[in-house]
């Protein structure tokens, strides 16, 4: 028989440690940093915004507010890494592993006239095994919509569907692309719904046209608690 004993001071006092149900909750820590961006062919400064998206069974214990991360603006020579170096430390309590956390990334450009504009988007999935991982997330820039694919059914009421995927007039597709080229103002997503499978209208992603862009490098260490005890894999 082996029972846990509390060692207090110099004496060994026998106290039975009562383990309640809360002690056996699985917890995950993601500790790391957004290292930087690579292969973005631009002379402007770039910064990255990161939002955490996770399922309902995931409870962000620390830090207290989930307002997202915005990195510093970095400049780099061609072929060099745009170095952001933004650390993060997330502590989740898991009651349902469905909806493993994802990082929704949005890379912004700061041009010479101090104007910011969206550059590209990406979704990085956090690793599911303990230890050190280096994630490379390729990003893409939307260039317009494909008018041939219908998202809504013909008799669906527009008024109830207020979460508009894009506010642009669909008939102006080629003209829109020309305008966005000359104004240096590429289209951006109005919601982050197309980036994640968990919430919102992920199905609307099929009407998008996009062009490839650079990659964001994230280093993360995953520390898991009680995963082995609860027979979850990964620890």
């Amino acid at each position, binding site marked *: 028989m082996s029972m846990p004993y*509390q*060692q207090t001071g110099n004496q060994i006092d026998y106290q039975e440690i009562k383990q309640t149900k809360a002690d056996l909750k699985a917890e995950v*820590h993601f500790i790391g*940093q957004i290292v930087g961006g690579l292969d973005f062919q631009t002379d402007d400064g770039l910064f990255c915004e990161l939002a955490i998206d996770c399922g309902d069974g995931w409870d962000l*214990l620390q830090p207290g507010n989930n307002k997202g991360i915005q990195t510093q603006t970095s400049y780099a020579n061609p072929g060099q*890494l745009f170095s952001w170096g933004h*650390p993060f*430390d997330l502590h989740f309590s898991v009651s349902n592993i469905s909806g493993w956390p994802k990082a929704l990334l949005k890379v912004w450009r700061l041009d010479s006239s101090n104007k910011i504009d969206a550059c590209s988007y990406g979704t990085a999935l956090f690793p599911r095994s303990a230890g050190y991982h280096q994630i490379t997330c390729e990003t893409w820039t939307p260039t317009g919509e494909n008018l041939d694919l219908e998202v809504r059914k013909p008799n669906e009421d527009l008024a109830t569907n207020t979460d508009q995927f894009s506010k642009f007039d669909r008939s102006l597709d080629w003209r829109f692309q020309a305008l966005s080229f000359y104004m240096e103002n590429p289209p951006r997503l109005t919601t982050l719904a197309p980036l994640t499978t968990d919430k919102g209208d992920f199905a609307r992603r099929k009407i998008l046209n996009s062009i490839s862009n650079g990659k964001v490098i994230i280093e993360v260490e995953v520390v898991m*608690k009680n995963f082995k005890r609860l027979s979850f894999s990964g620890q």
Partner: protein
Amino acid sequence: MNTRNYKKDVSDQGSIKGQTNQNFGYSQPQQFQDGISRIQEEMMDPRNIQPDSMFVNFSGVLECGECEDEESLRIEYAVKYGGDDWTYLKTSNNADDAEPSGISQLSTSRNLHSRNIVWNFPFECNFQTKNIFGWPQVVVRLSGPDFMGRSVAKGYGSVHVPTQPGYHERVIRIFKPLPISGFTGFLGYLLGNTAELKNFDKVISSGEGREVTRVKSVGYVKVKFHVTLVNFDKFGYL
């Protein structure tokens, strides 16, 4: 468990007339030779003791690095950790430091063809904690002489200490803050007031308030870590 001495005084009582064996068939209490009962022995087994905190002990070396076109550089480091749950344990040889930090020697690259600067600067820290949140990070600052010989900051970077025990190598990407305008930069270059971060360890380790800063990537530093974790399996990690 093999040395048990029973007190046998049956033979003594047998010699006195009228007295019978006082045992009545019950055995004497077992006395172990070293005087510790089995329960006490189990209580002292470290596998049965539930500790009240975890310990992280890591050591490492800030090995070498490059920073654009710089020949001579010095590296300074500070270890930042979450303040509430973590305690930095001072050892006797660095009892003067309230916070773990250090400044290395000024080192120069070997020749004109290579910009690799070697410091080989070792560090070691001990932490006690009950929570993983606030895991320590190593924040570095590179500084060196400018054209007049004044010491200015040449770059900053940070990396988290690895969470798995054993030997790890990491690369810290170094960036340098940019001046606000070309004129400020030029004036700062002449006067030695280049764009620097005050309290660099707090700014870089937390990431708060960095949204409006502009930086430029300038190089990298290679670090080696050796990590030992204590009591992590008792708390459900590892």
